[in-house]
């Protein structure tokens, strides 16, 4: 397996299967050694591969969806377009169960995009010679910061600044020295947990596959873990976007009693 010498080469950190950028850089390093050493700065090839695959995923998604959109019409016949339509309907049902049918149209573009984007990035790491951009903490933290800013801004926009602040104070207002810091810390920790959860799962899968493929040469011992990586990629993308929907829902204005319960109470008393 040609991966073995390259796995040993990058063996300062935990073992990972190499990506195409690492292969190319290692193969072409010899003639450029002196030039690279003479440069005043160090080219960060390790970080560059995450950015490279980030860009590759974006371009791939854009091209793929654009090709599918060619078949868009009132009565679509193109099967690719219909596949995307079924997928979009499924996402609308999934997030509609959380956000409710009244709010889903406003937030589905954001939450659905996050789901498709993270799903594609996670699945990219399973292929040979590719690496998921989500296996670096920086990518995930960037996405989580976007989610955090959007959720807070949406809370202020829907509630008005005073009621948004009242959210952090909580029910008995005289407990506010206690509940205000707690709620603020609880809000600030959300992007951290979102990104750490995704990072840990995807990075851990990479390490698992890498460590098992190091065990025996020429025998693909890491195959069961590729199936596990497939499962956790899909589940973690779903979790990230479901949690985004839940955080949006938590900061929306809500009435005191949910309408379903009060309707049932009226029905029983009538």
């Amino acid at each position, binding site marked *: 397996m040609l991966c073995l010498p390259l796995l040993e080469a990058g063996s300062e*950190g*935990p073992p990972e299967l190499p990506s195409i950028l690492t292969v190319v850089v290692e193969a072409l390093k010899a003639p450029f050694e002196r030039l690279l050493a003479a440069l005043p700065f160090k080219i960060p090839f390790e970080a560059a591969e995450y950015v490279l695959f980030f860009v590759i995923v974006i371009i791939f998604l854009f091209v793929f969806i654009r090709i599918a959109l060619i078949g868009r019409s009132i009565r679509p016949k193109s099967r690719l377009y219909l596949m995307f339509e079924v997928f979009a309907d499924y996402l609308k049902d*999934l997030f509609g*169960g959380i956000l409710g049918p009244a709010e889903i149209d406003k937030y589905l573009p954001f939450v659905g995009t996050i789901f498709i984007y993270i799903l594609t990035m996670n699945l990219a790491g399973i292929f040979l010679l590719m690496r998921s951009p989500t296996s670096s903490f920086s990518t995930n933290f960037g996405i989580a910061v976007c989610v955090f800013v959007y959720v807070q801004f949406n809370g202020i926009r829907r509630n008005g600044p005073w009621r948004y602040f009242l959210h952090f104070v909580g029910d008995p207002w005289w407990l506010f020295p206690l509940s205000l810091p707690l709620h603020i810390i609880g809000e600030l920790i959300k992007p951290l*947990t979102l990104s*750490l*959860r995704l*990072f*840990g*799962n995807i*990075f*851990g899968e990479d390490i698992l596959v890498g460590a098992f493929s190091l065990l025996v040469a020429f025998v693909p011992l890491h195959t069961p873990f590729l199936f596990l990586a497939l499962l956790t990629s899909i*589940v*973690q993308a*779903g*979790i990230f976007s*479901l949690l985004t929907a839940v955080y949006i829902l938590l900061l929306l204005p809500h009435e005191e009693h949910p309408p379903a319960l009060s309707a049932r109470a009226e029905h029983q008393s009538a």
Partner: protein
Amino acid sequence: MNFATALALSLPLAVGIAAIGSGLGIGKAVGSAMEAMGRQPEAAGKIQIGMIIGAAFMEALTIYALVVFFLLSGKIS
């Protein structure tokens, strides 16, 4: 006992203990989900989604321990 020995002893132990906790939690959650699905098979889809979400949360706690392991494993010499 120097610093590297202490780290090398405690880091795998930490991940193992975190795995015990999440094993107990996920076992209980999935057990209740199975029971609920047995009582009402029509709702099996929704129960399954909720079970997966709950399991991912508990899994995340174990993964925080794993992340701490990776962060500190460079300091063992």
